């Protein structure tokens, strides 16, 4: 068993010394799990996620976790995660695209069951036709589950979001699961610099009694407990309890926002707040948006970036404020449905200034030039397209 010192969570997240490593996104996620005092991880293979759970399996074999196994499939894996968390453990799993959808009945039940688990979502197209590439349309399916959804831009975000998620999800006034999403391959299989907390320090263990609902362990009253809303009692009780329960789940989701401010520096990052035209993006698209801002600067165009880190809770107020004076808003995305553009349009009053796209899908890369085309469109600049034969 490797020696790890339990340290204060706030200190570890905000003040602990950091060491710079050049690692993949998958490594960054596993390194965060290693420092999070996780009890159990449950795995099921799917590309591009598998790399993460291989690495988590390795750290279990090294003694950092108490339990780890390869489940029957994602529905079983996510159900067993719910069981483990009810039993009092801190639990982690990860999945991708079709695996997420296979597990989503169980995943969507976690918030209602008050399961503070952390789930890595390493995006991949949702079939068919079969592909394994990093389209992120699957995040659209997560938006209405009640869980907190974070979207990481790079390897550093993956480490920071994952480690902080264990702390945020177990806050008594939150106590719902958190999905840490990032693009498969682009982030999971590519290396970047990550400033990491010391390997020999970890979060305090989960205290299952510091909770708004009791664990299912026969150790704590009430004795007669089906912890979840007993909708089987009667139809009247069912309507009432289910309604109240859903309100509470979404209120918990909103209450996570203050911790997103505390530990992740807020739900958005703004580059060039006085810009005329803004690019609003999350995940990998934010990295490309950042590059587009640089391109635009070189051409003397006043373009800014709003990187959205938290998709749920969605930072409506923050985005509305930043975009209030923007002339146009460009929302580049790695999916065809434009789920982020819809969220942005729903958050601002003058949403006819939102230019949906560019969108790439099927897992294609998002060239900065595509974003620049929209920037020129926003500024009314006509550029001749160079066609190279």
């Amino acid at each position, binding site marked *: 068993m490797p020696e790890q010192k339990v340290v204060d969570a706030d200190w570890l997240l905000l003040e602990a010394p950091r060491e710079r490593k050049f690692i993949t996104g998958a490594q960054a996620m596993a390194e965060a799990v290693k420092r999070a005092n996780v*009890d*159990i991880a*449950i795995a099921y293979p799917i590309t591009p996620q598998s790399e993460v759970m291989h690495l988590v399996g390795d750290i279990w074999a090294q003694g950092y976790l*108490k*339990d780890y*196994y390869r*489940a*029957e*499939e994602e*529905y*079983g*894996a996510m*159900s*067993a*995660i*719910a*069981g*483990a*968390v*009810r*039993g*009092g*453990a801190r*639990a982690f799993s990860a999945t991708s695209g079709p695996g997420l959808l296979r597990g989503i*009945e*169980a995943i969507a*039940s976690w918030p209602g*069951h008050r399961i503070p688990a952390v789930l890595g979502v390493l995006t991949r197209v949702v079939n068919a036709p079969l592909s394994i590439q990093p389209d992120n349309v699957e995040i659209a399916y997560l938006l209405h589950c009640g869980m907190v959804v974070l979207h990481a831009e790079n390897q550093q975000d993956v480490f920071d979001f994952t480690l902080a998620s264990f702390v945020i999800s177990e806050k008594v006034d939150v106590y719902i699961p958190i999905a840490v999403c990032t693009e498969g391959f682009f982030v999971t299989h590519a290396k970047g610099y990550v400033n990491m907390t010391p390997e020999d320090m970890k979060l305090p263990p989960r205290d299952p009694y510091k909770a708004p609902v009791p664990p*299912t*362990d*026969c*150790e*704590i*009253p*009430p*004795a*007669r*407990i*089906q*912890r*979840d809303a*007993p909708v*089987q*009692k009667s139809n009247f009780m069912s309507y009432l309890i289910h309604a109240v329960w859903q309100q509470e789940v979404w209120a918990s989701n909103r209450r996570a926002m203050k911790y997103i401010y505390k530990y992740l520096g807020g739900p958005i990052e703004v580059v060039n707040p006085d810009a005329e035209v803004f690019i609003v993006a999350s995940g990998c698209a934010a990295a490309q948006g950042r590059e587009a801002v640089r391109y635009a600067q070189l051409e003397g165009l006043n373009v800014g970036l709003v990187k959205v880190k938290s998709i749920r809770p969605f930072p409506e107020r923050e985005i509305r404020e930043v975009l209030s004076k923007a002339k146009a808003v460009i929302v580049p995305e790695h999916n065809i449905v434009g789920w982020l553009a819809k969220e942005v349009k729903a958050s601002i009053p003058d949403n006819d200034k939102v230019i949906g796209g560019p969108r790439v899908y099927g897992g294609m890369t998002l060239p900065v030039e595509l974003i620049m085309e929209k920037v020129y469109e926003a500024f009314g600049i006509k550029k001749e397209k160079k066609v190279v034969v």
Partner: protein
Amino acid sequence: MSFKIYEINEELLDVMPQEIRDLQFKATWGNPKRGVMDLPYSKELIEEHSLCAGCPESMALRYILASLPNPEDTIIVNSTGCTSLVFPHIALHTVHSLFGNQNAVASGIKRVLEWRFPDKVKDVVVLAGDGATVDIGLDCTLQSFFRQEKITTICFDNEVYANTGGQESGLTVKGHVFKMAPKGKQWDKVPFWQIAIDSGCHYVARLTVSSPKRVETVIKKAIYVAREVGPTYVHLYTPCILEIGLNSDDGLDEMRQRDKERFAFFEYMTPQAEEVINRKKEEGLL
């Protein structure tokens, strides 16, 4: 044991409802010899029930709850269906998660409780219907057997999806006409007790609930073996009298008839299970 969680604050004793006080003073806690013979004299862990009058499933639930050797440290994971209607009436820590994932949830709970409470016995029992166990939940049920999870799985086989209005299930007998099988079921009843044996269960029993004492013995064996060896499986016939057109007082006769044919008592155990069962007999616990 966690009997203390049933103890009422003395200051509040006089204002607590009788049925809650009875749980503390008249239920059988901390006594592994408890059983169905206590039913007339002790407080039951099930407070009324919400099933149809005369439902054999309600009998099964009462016998099982009376037979748990360690109720104060027993967690029951159930699934959607008629059984799930009863769980809010049961004075134990129970879980209703989804339809079909009961064995996966139980796996997670059991594994965590093993290391959280290394010095205590925490029994995890799955209790679900035939649809949950063999149709929608087949994957999770079998894989928990393959993984040798130390849980007891009890299937209430009423040979039909009763709670959703009487549809054919994998355990309906061939030829029987139910909804979604308007021409009669086209293939055979799944012999799940055999599949459980082939999948690694260490103790398997098939029976009706016509004999309370036999139910008690089987449940205790299944729980003791699961505790020490690995997965166990109990297949109970609990006919849906409503869906097969019987009256409220016909359930027992229906089960007695099936005792002679497709639900004739059948029991299987591995040598490791037999060792546990013999030891428990010597200890006077079976």
